[in-house]
Each structure stands twice: as structure tokens, then as C-alpha cells.
């Protein structure tokens, strides 16, 4: 029995994580799992009923009719809390996108070290969206124009940010009608902060209109630009073999774990780790080489493109250190726990911060700069290698699973028809016939307040049985990967009969890994292309699709959820709502909660709901999918109709002895 309030099995569904939690207890160190138990969440703040925006407060509104010192009502306070979270999330993604744009600019100008434009085709395609001339121009010239255009989107003051035009025409018209098209990325974030300063916007619905606009500046702005540029610089992902979980750490190699979100550094670390100079350096230190792995979305970036293994998702960051086998954990931005430094103090592991924006007290800081990227990456690796000799006894759980990541929307398009017939037609057909009941995007974080990976994987597996095709990003994707759901084999064994036919026809896993959390824009693109392919309505809100974030915890998740709602999606968050109110104790404290569902659905066709019970999440997901199917006039879902095609019979017959097999396969041939 664990020392905490919950058993190891209650803390995490991942056996590797369970092993490491036992070890943590043995060593007497704390983890997010145990701290979550020691730190009950503030129930008033958790319900969004606490306002600490000005010095007259903080005001905790816990009684009927109570207002803040300034007179702010609960709904105003909740809306303000909510939009500030959305703004922070949008800022995080968008600042990432901005840095990518500056990197692209520097690469185009030949000012960087080690980078190049790897995907010229994507560069040309993206440039064409914006009528940037491409014929007869070098990639650098095109990239320069694209970088300028993208950089300008952040500081743009009026008009519309350009990626908006990549949405379905009907959706764009709706946004214009509702006046929520972002003018510039930074402007919307700044305005969100301004509006929520003491004594500004105090109409909750009006505040939430701007939440939509701020979130759109993320999804159809900063995030989309980040993904575009990552693909241009590092290659558009295509399927390849990868591995996930702590078992990817190696006893006899220098283990370097990259953790965070941006691919600029990690890509360079990948390159440097294969450099003969570094390999030799590692061998001199007595190791076989450098073994790179990732955590969180940095893991996803290099897993999607190079198949570099993922050591785990968000809650694995401390567990990796607990193995005692990690020489260095190299971090950049977002979702990096401050606890890492203190925890690493128990081992030889060095925590190396690299972003000019992120320092952690006690960590080694080696600042990353794209102009000297390869040099910095090598210096980081040498620091790790130098640390190899300090490794004590390592304890690496032998748990890992294979996966096939790499499903960019470009590859999905290709895989459904090849070079000549690429399109979304087969996917749309599959949904229209009912082989695929609908699509669910299951994304988001880990949250130690629920059993790690459990909500993700339970919902995922149950929906697969109902013939729902699933796309995933972020930490949710790694959860499925660890369970083997991202293999073609799972497409044969763990799904309903119709979805099995589709998986077998295309050769895909039933859960498609589409990238990091900033790559949720790939899902927007897929939905748009499904709409454009025809047969599933003329806007995203008509597609039988649902977005879920069962284990969310970050503000980015709320930004993503909001831009998905604005794009027409039904978004279900698991766990608790940050604006739940306490309707049983304080009347009208759930106005905003209800507005995000009913109010937004009226306006945008999408809605946001918070559902703690996984079975209820599944029920609501299927209900929504079936509702959308019915609205499109598609046949009702009927799993009994499908499942006849595939290799099974053939493979059975092939086991027969030669003559019998001939007879069974061909009858009597010729005469």
C-alpha cells in the first residue's frame, strides 16, 4: 500500500509509473502524485468564485447575492477568470509560434547554425494560401516573405489575421458576423488582460465574446503558424516506428531527456546526438552513445518526425528522474515542474534550462540561441555526458510499447489515396456509410488529481469499440501510445467491426497520433478538409465529431477548447470545471458554466462542457455524434452491417495443407 491516500493503482494506470511511485516512496521523495493528495484544491477558487484581480480583494463569493467589493457578480468574476486563463494559454502557444516565425526568418536569411528548410513543398503550399509568389523563387525567398507575414500577424492592429481564410467559408462568415475575427494575435491577448482589469468589461457574455476572439488568435493564429513553420523547418511528419514509456531509457547509454514544447532546440539536440564527435565523446566517457528521449510535447515533436522515443507524458517528468538513469533533463518552455530541481538533487541528474524566458532556481542554464543552435546543443550534450560518470544505481522499469506516430493532415490526405488520388473521400465515405460512427479528438494533459492516463485510455478504448475513429495529440496521445493503441494491430483487435475495416483497409492504428498540443490546429485542418470534401455538411459544426480533454490541467487546454468551440466543435473536459460555481449552495453561480454550453452552442454550433464521469463523457460523445449523423441524414449507426472485409478468412485458409488450400482458394482451376 502506498504511503499516500491512494494506492499506486489509483494514482496511475501506467505500470511503469506505478513502479516509480513505489520507488519514490522507498526513497521518501515527493511527486506531483503525492503533493496532489497533500494539497487539496481550494474549493472556492476551483469553482471560479474567487476574485483576486485588485487590491480590494481577494473576494470570495460564497453566499447568494454576494458581490465583490467593487460589486462584481459571480458570473462576471468567473468570466474574467476564464478569459484570463484563455489569454495565458493563447499567449503560450502564440509566443511559441512567434519564436518559430523568427527562426524561419533567420533561416531564410542564412543566419542560423544547423537549420535548413526541409519541406519545400509545404513551404510552397503554405505560401500559396496567402498568395505569396512561389514560381521561380528560391525556398529562402519564399520563406523570407512567409516569415515576414507571420511575424506581422502578432503585432497587427487592425483587419484580420491571415490564417483565418483557411477555415470553411461558412465558418469565416459566421466569425465576421459575430465580430470575433482576431485583428492581431498580441492585440487580443492584451485586450483580454485590459478588459479584465478592475472596473472594465463587466458583462459576462461580452467578456466571453472576447474569449472566443482571443482563442481564435491561438488556434487559427499562433498555433497554426507554429505548426506550419515546424513542418517547413523540420519536415512534415509521416508514419514511422517509435516507442513510448520509461523503458526507453538505456542502462548503458547517456540518457538525455528533452522536456517542454518547442522543437527548435530538441531537433538540434537530435542532430547533435548523432554527430560522430558526440558519439565518440560519449564512448570516451564509457557509454555506448547518447540515448535521447522526450517528455511532454517536445517528445511528441521529435517522435512525430524522427521516431525518437517518448519517455512519457507530463506526469512522467519526475518519474524519469526517479530512475536515476537520466544524465540530463533539458527543458525549454511550458509544463515544466519546479519540483524537478529539488527532486534531481537526490540523484546525479542535471536539470538544464535553455529558454531565455524560463529559468528555474537551482537549475543549470545554458541559453539556447538559433544562431548557434548546433554549438549549444553539443555543449548541452557534453554536459550530460560529463555527468555520466556520476550515475549511481539505475532503476529503469522495463515497460515500453511500440507506436506508429506521424499523422500530419498532409499524410492523412496521402494515406487515403496515394500520390495521385489523395483526398479525404474515403474517410468521409466511411463516416457517411457508418463504418466509422464519428471522430473524436482526445487531447490534453495529465492531471494527478485523477488516475494518470486512465480517463484518456478508458474513454479512448470504449469509443473505439463503438467505431469512433480517434485522433490524439499532446499528453493524451502518449497515454494511448503506452497502451499499444497506436499500432495497426490495435486496429484489428480493439475496435468495432466497421472501424476495423477502415483500419485494415488503410493500414492505420485506430488512434492517430497527430502531434503536440500546439498541433491541434492539424485537427482543425482535417475537419476543414472533411467539410470541403463534401457529404458531411458545409461547416465544421455539422461533422459528427467531438473533442475531449479528459485529464486537462493547463490554461492552454482551455484556450484550445475555446477555439475548438468557436470552430464549431463540441468539447468535453474531464475533471473539474474552473468555473463550476456551487449551484447547490449559491444560486446563479453556474450561469457562466451553462453559457459555455448552451449560449455558445446557439452562437457557434459548438459548446464546452465539463464532465467528470468517463462513462458520461462516452455517452454524451456518442449522443452528439448520433445527433450530427441524424442531422446530416446519414444512416443510423449499426455495427452489425459491417466487418466482412479483410484478411482474416484468407489467413485462415492459408494455414491449410497445400492441396486443400488450393481447393479452398481457387476451386478447381482451368480445365
Amino acid at each position, binding site marked *: 500500500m502506498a504511503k499516500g491516500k491512494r494506492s499506486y493503482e489509483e494514482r496511475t494506470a501506467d505500470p511503469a509509473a506505478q513502479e516509480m511511485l513505489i520507488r519514490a516512496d522507498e526513497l521518501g521523495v515527493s511527486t506531483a502524485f503525492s503533493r496532489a493528495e497533500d494539497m487539496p484544491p481550494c474549493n472556492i477558487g476551483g469553482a471560479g468564485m474567487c476574485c483576486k484581480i485588485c487590491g480590494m480583494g481577494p473576494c470570495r463569493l460564497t453566499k447568494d447575492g454576494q458581490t465583490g467589493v467593487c460589486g462584481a457578480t459571480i458570473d462576471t468574476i468567473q468570466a474574467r477568470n476564464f478569459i484570463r486563463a484563455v489569454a495565458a494559454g493563447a499567449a503560450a502557444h502564440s509566443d511559441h509560434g512567434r519564436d518559430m516565425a523568427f527562426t524561419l526568418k533567420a533561416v531564410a536569411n542564412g543566419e542560423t547554425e544547423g537549420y535548413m528548410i526541409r519541406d519545400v513543398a509545404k513551404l510552397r503550399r503554405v505560401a500559396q494560401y496567402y498568395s505569396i509568389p512561389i514560381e521561380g523563387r528560391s525556398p529562402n525567398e519564399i520563406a523570407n516573405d512567409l516569415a515576414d507575414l507571420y511575424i506581422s500577424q502578432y503585432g497587427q492592429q487592425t483587419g484580420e489575421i491571415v490564417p483565418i481564410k483557411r477555415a470553411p467559408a461558412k465558418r469565416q462568415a459566421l466569425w465576421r458576423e459575430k465580430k470575433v475575427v482576431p485583428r492581431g494575435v498580441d492585440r487580443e491577448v492584451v485586450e483580454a488582460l485590459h478588459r479584465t482589469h478592475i472596473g472594465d468589461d463587466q458583462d459576462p457574455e461580452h467578456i466571453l465574446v472576447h474569449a472566443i476572439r482571443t482563442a481564435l488568435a491561438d488556434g487559427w493564429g499562433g498555433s497554426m503558424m507554429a505548426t506550419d513553420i515546424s513542418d517547413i523547418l523540420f519536415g512534415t511528419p509521416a508514419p514511422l516506428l517509435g516507442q513510448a514509456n520509461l523503458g526507453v531509457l538505456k542502462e548503458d547509454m547517456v540518457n538525455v531527456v528533452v522536456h517542454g514544447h518547442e522543437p527548435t532546440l530538441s531537433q538540434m539536440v537530435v542532430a547533435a546526438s548523432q554527430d560522430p564527435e558526440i558519439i565518440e565523446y560519449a564512448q570516451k566517457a564509457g557509454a555506448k552513445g547518447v540515448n535521447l528521449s522526450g517528455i511532454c510535447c517536445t517528445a511528441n515533436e521529435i517522435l512525430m518526425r524522427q521516431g525518437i522515443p517518448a519517455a512519457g507524458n507530463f506526469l512522467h517528468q519526475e518519474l524519469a528522474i526517479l530512475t536515476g538513469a537520466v544524465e540530463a533533463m533539458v527543458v525549454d518552455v511550458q509544463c515544466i515542474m519546479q519540483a524537478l530541481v529539488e527532486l534531481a538533487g537526490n540523484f546525479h541528474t542535471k536539470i538544464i534550462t535553455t529558454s531565455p524566458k524560463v529559468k528555474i532556481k537551482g537549475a543549470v542554464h545554458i541559453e539556447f540561441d538559433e544562431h548557434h543552435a548546433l554549438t549549444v546543443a553539443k555543449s548541452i550534450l557534453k554536459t550530460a555526458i560529463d555527468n555520466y560518470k556520476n550515475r549511481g544505481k539505475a532503476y529503469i522499469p522495463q515497460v515500453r510499447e511500440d507506436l506508429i506516430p506521424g499523422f500530419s493532415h498532409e499524410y492523412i490526405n496521402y494515406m487515403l*489515396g*496515394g500520390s495521385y*488520388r489523395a483526398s479525404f473521400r474515403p474517410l468521409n465515405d466511411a463516416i457517411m456509410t457508418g463504418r466509422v460512427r464519428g471522430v473524436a479528438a482526445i487531447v490534453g494533459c495529465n492531471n494527478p488529481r485523477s488516475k494518470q492516463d486512465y480517463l484518456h485510455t478508458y474513454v479512448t478504448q470504449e469509443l473505439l469499440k463503438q467505431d469512433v475513429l480517434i485522433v490524439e495529440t499532446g499528453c493524451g496521445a502518449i497515454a494511448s501510445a503506452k497502451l499499444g493503441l497506436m499500432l495497426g494491430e490495435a486496429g484489428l483487435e480493439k475496435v468495432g467491426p466497421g472501424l476495423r475495416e477502415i483500419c485494415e483497409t488503410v493500414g492505420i492504428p485506430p488512434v492517430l497520433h497527430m502531434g503536440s498540443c500546439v498541433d491541434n490546429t492539424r485537427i482543425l485542418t482535417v475537419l476543414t478538409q472533411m467539410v470541403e470534401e463534401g457529404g458531411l455538411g458545409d461547416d465544421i459544426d455539422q461533422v459528427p465529431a467531438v473533442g475531449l480533454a479528459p485529464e486537462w490541467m493547463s490554461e492552454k487546454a482551455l484556450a484550445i477548447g475555446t477555439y475548438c468551440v468557436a470552430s464549431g466543435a463540441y468539447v468535453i473536459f474531464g475533471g473539474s470545471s474552473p468555473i463550476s460555481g456551487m449551484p447547490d449552495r449559491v444560486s446563479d453561480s453556474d450561469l457562466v458554466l451553462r453559457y459555455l454550453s448552451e449560449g455558445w452552442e446557439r452562437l457557434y454550433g459548438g459548446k464546452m462542457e465539463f464532465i467528470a464521469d468517463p462513462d458520461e463523457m462516452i455517452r454524451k460523445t456518442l449522443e452528439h455524434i448520433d445527433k450530427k449523423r441524424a442531422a446530416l441524414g446519414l444512416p443510423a449507426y449499426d455495427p452489425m452491417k459491417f466487418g466482412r472485409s479483410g484478411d482474416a478468412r484468407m489467413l485462415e485458409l492459408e494455414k491449410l495443407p497445400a492441396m486443400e488450400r488450393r481447393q479452398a482458394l481457387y476451386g478447381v482451376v*482451368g480445365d
Partner: protein
Amino acid sequence: MSRYIATRAIRGANALVTEAELMLQKALEEKGPDTKVAFPNTAYYLPLILGMTGVEVTTLGQLPEILQHARRLLHPVPSKNNWTPYLGETLDCGMATLLAAETIEAIRFVYGLQPEPYPGFHLAGGTSFTSPDANKEGDSLDGHLNGPIDDIQLRSWGIQLVDGRMPGFAAIVGCAKSNEVAVKIVRELQKRNILCFLSGNVNGRSIIDQLVEEGVELGYDTYTVPFGTDTISAIYALGFATRSALTFGGLKGGQAREILLYNKERVFAFVLALGEVDDLKYAAAAGAINFGFPVIADTVIPEILPTGITRYEHVVSMPFNEIEGKDDLERAERLVQKCIEVRGVKVKVADVPVPVPYGSAFEGEVVRKADMRIEFGGKHSRCFEYLYMAPLDEVVDGKVEVVGPGMENVPPQGSMDMGIVVKVAGRQMQQDFEPVLERQIHYFINGASGVQHIGQRDIAWIRISNAAADKGFNLEHFGKILHARFKTDFGAIVDKVQVTIFTDPAKVQEWLQIAREAYDYRNKRLADLTDDKVDEFYSCTLCQSFAPNHVCVVSPERLGLCGAYNWLDCKASYNINPTGPNQPIKLGKIIDPVKGYWTGTNEYAKIGSHGQVQEVSMYSIMENPMTACGCFECIVMLIPEANGVMVVSREDTSMTPAGMTFSTLAGIAGGGLQTPGVMGVGKFYLISPKFISADGGFKRVVWMSSVLKETMAEELKAVAIREGDPDLIEKIADDRNVTTVEELLAWLEEHNHPALVMDPIF
């Protein structure tokens, strides 16, 4: 795909591309890079390669580039475990297979190995040009299979493909369970007018062998074309598909995706794999799926039922032994039904109560003297056919009467006089439709297997084969056929049909007189029917299923370019189907009577062509000429040096003074494009007084395919007289004496052709 299929298809593709590379390397060493490569008589080079890559291959030296492209499309086979997706990769490998297969066939042509030699075989009909010894005298249809279909045949099938009479094609690969089954499958497809392309074998035995053994006629005439006895020759089916997009769809080489989608949407074709499916067949099938053509196998193979690349299921397995049915013949029938269902082929089958197989596929069948039971007409007897309308109460629907002796007493290979008189009635029937319907008798009677019909009116000539007679076909069946078909095809205007077959000599004579009076009356009516006597023309958009932006404007003095629809036909068609492809065009205000512009025709051209054509002139080749789909009978083209035009027949394969053959010219004339100086026309437009009348009329014709001069001798003679120059036809050069512009000019000078002194044509 499934992993099983993907594995085999990808393996097959890798093997075939390698084989092609080795063959090419050898050919380059032995023959040199400048060696010409071509399929016979096509303007589309190696058509699949042209369509998919845009490369116009004319020499061996260009082929390495094609195979490099094919190799780039190859992928490794999927892993046994933890596989990456394979659908897109397999389709790419399928395409690589097709590129390699066409390369291989091109090389085989260089070595004289295509069309495939097949001793003792005789092609049933066909343009002799498919043979490598095309220009030699002698029977070049003997001793080899067909090889690729040439442009001439493609275009002559064009109208049937576009108007739906021929719903599609079946690429049959392999070997049927038995000869009996092979024949049944082909017969079932023929019955539905589906083209059968035959290729491939199983353990060395091909369906071609099976059909030959059973005496089934194979060739263009029977819609059953033997490509070759290996799988590679199945590439000709996809070359045919590619060319139909290029010919009728207005697409250009290199528009691969558009060409493939065109086929998916418009060409109803499927692959029928008979017997064991090996790696190469899987690979070729993956290529065919790129075209949207599904694959149906009569053995156990993994099924791929989801849709998307094809309209319906991708791969269907119908193990022959598991098909329900009392015997193999019934199983074969069900198999064919399944194929049609899977591709969604639109088939109209008239249920014709005769004891022989019936369908358009039998229209081209020839009954040779040796196989003949009896003939009507020809040298030794007289045969005529006459259709007229009567009041409703005077027609007994379905009544078929034979007046006079039957055919039983006529000795084998003998002949007798016969008159077929059809009396129809209907509320929508008009006298003008009588000749339209009467001309259908030819097609209707020809549809019976073992019955041959030639000619019309009082020069009709009908033969019944021994095989048909043995099955019980007799005179009454002519009536049964006509009743069934008129009711099915023309039900909108014909409510009642009664047929009388006269063999009694006195009656034949009596009715022949009546018929001849009617023929005369109709001739006069037709002669009187001029463009200025009507206030509406007709549109014809029949071809738009194939050539989406082409529209014919049919006037009394200008028939459709396919030769199949004149003004009266269109009028009848409109009455049969008021929302169909033939719509009246109200002429409105006349803008220019000489060039032939009306407000109505211009407006319609704009709408009908979806904005591609702004104006159309009815009588000029030089200014806004009418566009063409691809199934024109002739091409008229300006020869600037001669101040006139040449007329090339689609049956003419020789070089023209324009420096291009018909096939090459057709590429310029077709696809719904307006090209001043070039026009595709129906051959009877040549004799119309309105033939390029704005540009000087028939006197502008300085060169003409000899085949036209021969087959239309009388009509052309009459035109010459009308034009006031009775020797005009002799002054026109043809392919027998002139093949270059220089020769043409010399000829015109020598023969004092009037075009030389006419006003400059532009």
C-alpha cells in the same frame, strides 16, 4: 487495401519495375536510345504514360525517365508487425506497375512482339492498323491478338460510350473455371453491351484460349477484344481509359489526378479477375483502383469493402464455387451481375423475347456465307423495311403477323423476299418521327446474336445464321424484337406497335410500292427542311457525360458531328425525354445570316458550354467554329497555303497535307475547345448547302480522304452539280495522290481547283 493485398501488390510492383528496367536496359543496348517507340495509330503516344506524367514518349531514350518516376513511387512491403499505413503506398505502387507495364509493351512493340502472336487466330473486325504490318497487303487480322485499341475504334465507340448505350468495360484477367463459364461470362457482358477486354492467364491458360476453343468471335466487332495472354497486356485497358479522358474530357497529358477522377466519375469499368490472383495481378489491380475501377475476383481473396477511391467497394471476392446457382452457368450469370452492381454500371436491358442472346454487343456480328441459314435481300432476293404511323385504334399493340410462307422450306443458304412493315401509334407520335424510328430497325435487329442487318429502306439485307436458326429463331422474332425495343426505347412517343412480316410475293410487291412512295415523300420533306424554315434548332449534350463543356447545335442543315443525330432525331429525342440532352434552342433574333449567328444560339452556347464558349457560328470554320467532343466522323481543317480546307475521315490513317494524321488532328479538334480553322463534323454535313457556307462552301474542299470519296460518291456528285462544277470531286486531291502541301498545291494548279481563285479565306 488490406495488408495481405498490399504486401502482394507492392511485391509485384517492385518486381515488375525491376523487370521493366532490365528490359529497357537491354533494349537500349541492342536498339539504341533513338529507336522509335509507339503504339499503332494513336495520337496519344504511350497513352497511360502521357496521361500520368505528361511525357510524350517517342523514343526508347525517353523511357528511363519514366521508370525512374515509377521507381520513386515504389515502397517496401508492410512489416509483419507494427506496420505503417499502406493504402496510399499500395496505390502508388499500382501506378508504378502501370508505368512499368506500358513501358514493357512499348519495348515489345520495338521487338515485334506486340500485338502478341497467336497462330491460327482471326480477329473479328478491327482496324488492320493494329498490326505491325499494317501497310502491307493481305489479311492483317490473322495470326495475332489485338494489342492496344487504336484511336479510330475509340472514337467510333465514342458515341455509344457517351450516350450510355455502351455502359462501360470489363477488364477480364485470367482464366475462367471452364470454357463453358468463360463463354457465359462474356455473353452476359455482351448482352449488357459492356466491352470485354481480355488478358492474362492462370498457369499458362488464358480466357482467350478458352473463348477461341469455343469458337467465340473476338475483335472490335463483337465488343470483345483480346489484348494478350499475360497480365501485362491488361495495361491496354487503362491506356484506353486514359485516352477516353484525353479524347472526350478535354484533359491534357499530365493532368493525372483529373484523368483518374474523370474515369472514376464517368467511365464505368471494372476488373474481373478469374482464377488465382498472383502478385502481378494484385499490383495491376492496385493500379486500376487508382482509376476508380473496382476489382472482383472469382476466388477467395481478401475483400476491401469500404469505399472512396472507387465509388463502391474496392475489392470483392465471389468464390465461384460459393455462388448460389443450380449450375456453373447460373453462377457465371450471378458473377457478372455482381460486377455490375459493384461498379454501379448503368445498364438498360430490353427484355427481348427471342431464343438467342440479345444486346448491342452483337450488333457488329458478321454472319458469313458458310454459317448462314438464310438471307433476305442482297444479290438473290429483295428486302425492305417501312415504318409508318396510324391512328391509335388502328394498331393492335404486340401483334406480329407473318403474311406468306415461313423460312422453314427455304433450302440452307438460300434466300427469300421479305418486307418488314411496322405500324406505330402514339399520342406524341409525329409523322416527322417515322424515319427516325425506321432507322432504328437496323440496330434493333442487329442486336440478336446470329442475325446480321445491313442497309435500310429498300436496300436492307438480313442474314440469319445456322446457330440462330437451330435455336429456333424465325421470322416472327423480327416482329417480337421490334415491338420490344420500340416500346422500351421510344415508349414516350410510341404507345402501340404492330409488325407485319410479308413474304408473300404479291404482298411484298404491293407494300414495296407504298414504302417507296413514302421514302420519296420523306426525301422531299428532308430536302425542304432548311435552317430558315424552322424557328428552333436543337442542342445536343449527350456527350457531356464525357466532354463536359462541349455542346452541339443541331440544325436541319447541320447534323451532329457524330453523324448519329440530325435535327429530326433531336426533335424526336426531345419528345421522348423533355428534360434530356436534346433541348430546343429558340433562335431569337438573327444577328448574322451568313455566318450563322442568332441571339438564341449564342446564349445557348454560353450556357451549354458552362461559359467556355461565348459565341458559336453555325456556318463558319474560321470564326467561332462549333466545338467537338471527340466522336466526330470527320475533321475539317484549314490549309492556308491552298486557300481551302481538307476533310479527313476518321477511317483514314494516312498522312494528310497538314503534316498530321487524323489521330493527331483529333487532339486539336476535340475536348470542347474552340479552335478557328479546325472543326469536327458529321460526314453528311459535307453535302449540306450550309457546309462552311460563310467561308465559301464546299468549293473550299481541296483535299479529302479517299474513303469519303468512295463511300459518298453519289452524294458528292450531287453536291458538285449543285455547286455548278460537275467535275469538282475529281479536282479534289486525296490520300492516294497527295500527302504534302507542296504536292497539294501542284495538284490544285494542275486540276484548276476553284479554291485557288476564290477570295482569301482569311
